[in-house]
């Protein structure tokens, strides 16, 4: 059973999920805002299910996720965002860094119902795979039934920029330090969205995690 969260008219809900599996259903009513952050920064495998239903007009939903996985860890994130009515916004940014033999899985369902005009929906999934044995699977699924909407999605999986790594090594940085700086830069886009109050403690966790991963 999903845990149900209802955000009533005009309300804002900030949710921070750290290192755990969850199954959430969020119902949004008129002009409400959801800011959801997901961080997987320890060794535990996790399954994260997030359903967001915009049932009222003028809602905004932001979903940001950062997964730093290593060892044999497996992290799956499934988002399912449904715009039932118009004038809504949804922005999703999900980033995975996979080291060792870890596995990442992202499935992103996005539905815009037939009469949900003027919706703006964006889904972005960016992943970095640090070893040959790590695997990322990504599956965006868009169902758009309205005609006057802005919807975009992008997914990419790659490695760290070899040229940037060499440039940094040429300045005397060890490969580990160079990787760490590049990965921190990769993570920073997710961090930018985070409230100041939580920013520092999460950043510390990221530092510790990267010190282990970026060897």
């Amino acid at each position, binding site marked *: 059973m999903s845990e149900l969260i209802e955000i009533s008219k005009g309300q804002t809900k900030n949710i921070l999920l750290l290192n755990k599996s969850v199954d959430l259903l969020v119902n949004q009513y008129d002009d409400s805002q959801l800011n959801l952050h997901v961080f997987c920064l320890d060794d535990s495998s996790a399954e994260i299910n997030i359903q967001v239903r915009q049932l009222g007009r003028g809602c905004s939903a932001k979903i940001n996720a950062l997964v730093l996985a290593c060892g044999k860890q497996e992290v799956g994130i499934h988002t399912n965002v449904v715009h039932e009515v118009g004038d809504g916004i949804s922005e999703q940014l999900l980033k995975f860094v996979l080291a060792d033999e870890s596995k990442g899985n992202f499935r992103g369902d996005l539905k815009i119902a037939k009469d949900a005009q003027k919706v703006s929906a964006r889904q972005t999934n960016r992943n970095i795979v640090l070893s040959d044995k790590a695997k990322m699977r990504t599956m965006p699924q868009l169902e758009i039934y309205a005609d006057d909407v802005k919807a975009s999605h992008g997914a990419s999986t790659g490695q760290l*920029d*070899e*040229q*940037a790594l*060499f*440039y*940094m*090594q*040429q*300045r*005397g*940085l*060890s*490969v580990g*330090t160079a990787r760490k*700086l*590049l990965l*921190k*830069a*990769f993570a*920073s*886009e997710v961090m930018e969205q985070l409230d100041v109050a939580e920013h520092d403690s999460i950043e510390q966790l990221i530092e510790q995690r990267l010190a282990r991963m970026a060897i």
Partner: protein
Amino acid sequence: MLEIKNLHASINGKEILKGVNLSVHAGEVHAIMGPNGAGKSTLSAVLTGNPAYEVTSGEVWFKGKNLLEMPPEQRAREGIFLSFQYPVEIPGVSMVNFMRAAVNEKRAYEGKEPLSATEFLKYMREKKSIVELDNKLTNRSVNEGFSGGEKKRNEIFQMAMLQPSLSILDETDSGLDIDSLRIVAEGVNKLKTPQTASIVITHYQRLLDYIVPDFVHVLADGQIVKTGDKTLALELEKHGYEMVVKQ
């Protein structure tokens, strides 16, 4: 300082350097000129340990140590600096953090304490003035959105920060307007000491009006085919590379 002996190197199985010999001593400036595709940039890549290139035979000794056995970062910490022909943009990594990591890793290698944040910023301010680098640029991500001239100035700024004993300037003049060229060249000259040496790789004589070489070498088809003093560069400018390549 640097001894290159019969160096052969290839990329993707294609041989580019076909037996390069070169000695560089402290205090010297060597210019390496030559037509496109002669192997000029390959030489700088091989000396700095770029993994895209494979050394197939030959030796390189730097201050009495076997350079080819060292990973790129160790070569850098030993004092080899490359001013890249195409400096790499690194979004999200600030110039300040990048340089602080570089300076402190070098200091650690030399057994020195890291600079404190205050010391580091003071040090950086001093060095920025050498190439008249705008304050705004050091607050940005490495090379991101820099103009061509700013990128090259930034290379020389990094050189000033790291104080290498051997600096290799790979086509530092390409894409520079005359003012940037002068600033960059003056920066290089200010950093010159009797203990340092430079290898200036260039296609044109223009840069050598500012950075005056002790030796000019012509690299053609993977080998140094002619060596002379600075007047050789003027001759090449007048007659083209055919005059040496055809011999």
